[in-house]
């Protein structure tokens, strides 16, 4: 089959969509796109609905091109992608719940985000149906001797987000994990429709709290793409500074927490101290510990002062000094490695199929990092390495985080050394006619996709936010198979998928 760009020309290219092309296609071409996904030629980046359309974003890794195909859903039906390409399954179930678009051939017709608790069915359709769906949910059936089930959640034992895990075990060995998510569905995409850029930006920054800077970054880039403007150089540097601080803070938290789930509390104690130092430096530099609402379309709201720069430079030294000893401790503690090595392995064929972003992908051989593969300012001018490992186990996901902390420290030093002068924010033009933009930004967890359409007058007509977790959660189900129940916390923490980002 031809390359993605050539393929897109078979459809009608939608005007005013930036920076990647969006092609409006027929059902025949839509099916060809499905064949391209199922055949492994392309990767699925996202799939989302509108009242009468279904869109999917594709990536061709051969020549690193991105494109969107859109299909008019006559009679609110379209050929299911998931029927041939399982990574689309939950996305199709979600789009069906929200818009009532029926994927013909959908292998799993159960609701996903809709648990039957809303007053309406298909809340984002043109005409929502006033009868809610049935509250009953049929978990996958199990058959066989000696099997038992362990239901967990939605309220978990720790301080974590809610979701339901249904384990089927034979003795201590997990033979199947079935996830049920959607508990923290807040209707973000519904609230986005008709919102001002300011209100929509606040929602984007609250999609997944641990990635608030990355979501702000992605939303801002999508708006700027739609409007055809660029944020000033000082702003892009400050955005990257925040994104890297966020990455380090989260990776430190995860490094400690994964070890803690193997009862190695010492690492948690040290990492939590370092994480707190990052948040305090962020407070000093940008006025908020998590740097929320600091990145907005047009630039950043908080320029950095000399005190802030000093705080971040001090932070880099404060982490660089003790960190090697912690890494050595991890590397030399056999009892800890005994729990992480070969535990929760993601199989290479699933990595190829699901194309997970972040440490989940990079720990199992997928060399993809938006900052490197589809570089955006300022990463196109910075020097860094993208660590990749092959083994796909908990241990590999720990090492990817360790190496990324080191890379991010180097990036922060480069950003401070080359921080441009000038404005940190520009005034945005108002859209005179509808326009569309898409952005991919590398959050700590992986690539965040934001797609949006602005109305004339710059209100958000439709905005879709795709968390990296969508393609990681299903792999956690696969990774835990044949592991013991007691290793689930380790596997889960090493994935650290977002519930809120996924549930929206």
């Amino acid at each position: 089959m031809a390359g993605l760009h050539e393929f897109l020309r078979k459809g009608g290219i939608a005007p005013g969509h930036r920076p990647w092309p969006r092609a409006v296609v027929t059902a025949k071409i839509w099916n060809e796109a499905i064949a391209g996904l199922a055949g492994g030629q392309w990767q699925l980046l996202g799939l989302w609905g509108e009242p009468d359309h279904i869109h999917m974003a594709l990536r061709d890794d051969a020549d690193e091109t991105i494109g969107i195909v859109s299909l008019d859903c006559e009679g609110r039906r379209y050929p299911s992608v998931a029927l041939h390409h399982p990574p689309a399954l939950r996305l199709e179930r979600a789009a069906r719940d929200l818009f009532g678009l029926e994927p013909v051939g959908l292998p799993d017709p159960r609701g996903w985000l809709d648990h039957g608790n809303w007053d309406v069915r298909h809340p984002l359709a043109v005409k929502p149906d006033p009868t809610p769906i049935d509250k009953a949910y049929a978990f996958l059936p199990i058959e066989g001797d000696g099997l038992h089930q362990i239901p967990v959640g939605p309220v978990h034992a720790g301080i974590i987000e809610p979701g339901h895990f249904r384990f089927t075990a034979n003795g201590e060995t997990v033979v199947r994990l079935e996830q049920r998510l959607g508990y923290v569905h807040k209707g973000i995409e519904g609230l986005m429709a008709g919102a001002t850029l300011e209100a929509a930006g606040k929602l984007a920054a609250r999609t997944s709290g641990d990635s608030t800077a990355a979501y702000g970054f992605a939303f801002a880039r999508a708006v700027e793409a739609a409007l055809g403007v660029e944020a000033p150089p000082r702003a892009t540097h400050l955005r990257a500074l925040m994104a890297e601080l966020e990455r380090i803070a989260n990776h430190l938290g995860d490094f400690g927490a994964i070890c803690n789930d193997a009862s190695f509390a010492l690492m948690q104690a040290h990492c939590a101290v370092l994480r707190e130092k990052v948040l305090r430096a962020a407070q000093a530099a940008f006025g908020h510990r998590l740097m929320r609402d600091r990145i907005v379309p047009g630039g950043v709201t908080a320029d950095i002062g000399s005190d802030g720069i000093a705080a971040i430079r001090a932070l880099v030294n404060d982490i660089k000094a003790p960190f090697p000893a912690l890494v050595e401790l991890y590397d030399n503690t056999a009892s800890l490695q005994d729990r992480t090595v070969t535990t929760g392995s993601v199989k290479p064929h699933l990595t190829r199929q699901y194309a997970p972003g972040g440490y989940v992908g990079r720990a199992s051989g997928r060399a993809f990092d938006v900052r490197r593969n589809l570089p955006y300012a300022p990463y196109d001018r910075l020097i860094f390495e993208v660590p990749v490992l092959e083994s796909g186990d908990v241990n590999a996901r720990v090492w990817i985080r360790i190496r990324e902390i080191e890379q991010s420290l180097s990036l922060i030093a480069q950003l401070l050394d080359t921080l441009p002068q000038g404005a940190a924010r520009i005034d945005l033009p108002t859209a005179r006619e509808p326009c569309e933009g898409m952005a991919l930004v590398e959050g700590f967890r992986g690539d965040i996709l934001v797609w949006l359409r602005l109305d004339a007058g710059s209100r958000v007509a439709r905005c879709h936010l795709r968390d990296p977790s969508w393609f990681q959660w299903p792999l956690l189900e696969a990774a835990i198979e044949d592991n013991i129940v007691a290793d689930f916390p380790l596997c889960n923490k090493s994935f650290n998928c977002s519930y809120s980002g996924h549930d929206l």
Partner: protein
Amino acid sequence: MRKLLFQSLAQMSLTEPAPSVDDAALAEIGAALAQTTRRRLGRSLSIREVDAGSCNGCELEIHALGNAYYDLERFGLRFVASPRHADVLLVTGPVTRNMRMALERTYHATPNPKWVVAVGDCARDGGCFAGSYAVVGGVAAVVPVDLHIAGCPPPPLEILRGLLALLETAATAKT
């Protein structure tokens, strides 16, 4: 590991000292919190955290209460794994319709006397998610709330301050 442990022994404690000169606020909270808690519940207060729809920002700051700087447990406050062991429910997020039942059940599983603390701006009235088809509203729309701690998310120090305020309110209102 031995080297790291020895270093920790020799190193000054990171924990914000109770009578801190640098940060009088935390010291004040620490002392008052310990006194009031002891009077009401001996030496401890058990907290069960419930995310009823949060973006997970509040969870990050609640987690931070356990690090060496805030060291929640020195005040006799600790997080427990079950509502059956809890005195306080610390609830975050706008309550989503999909979490409403789970929150109600968690509340009813918590023995009396119990208090509910709603953490974060969303937990007060739904915040920027209010009005959504998928959101009930603030925590008080589902279970009785004794205290709201504002912030998006509130920093750990504010959460500590809030727990102190709860103890004082509870001491006068519920005895």
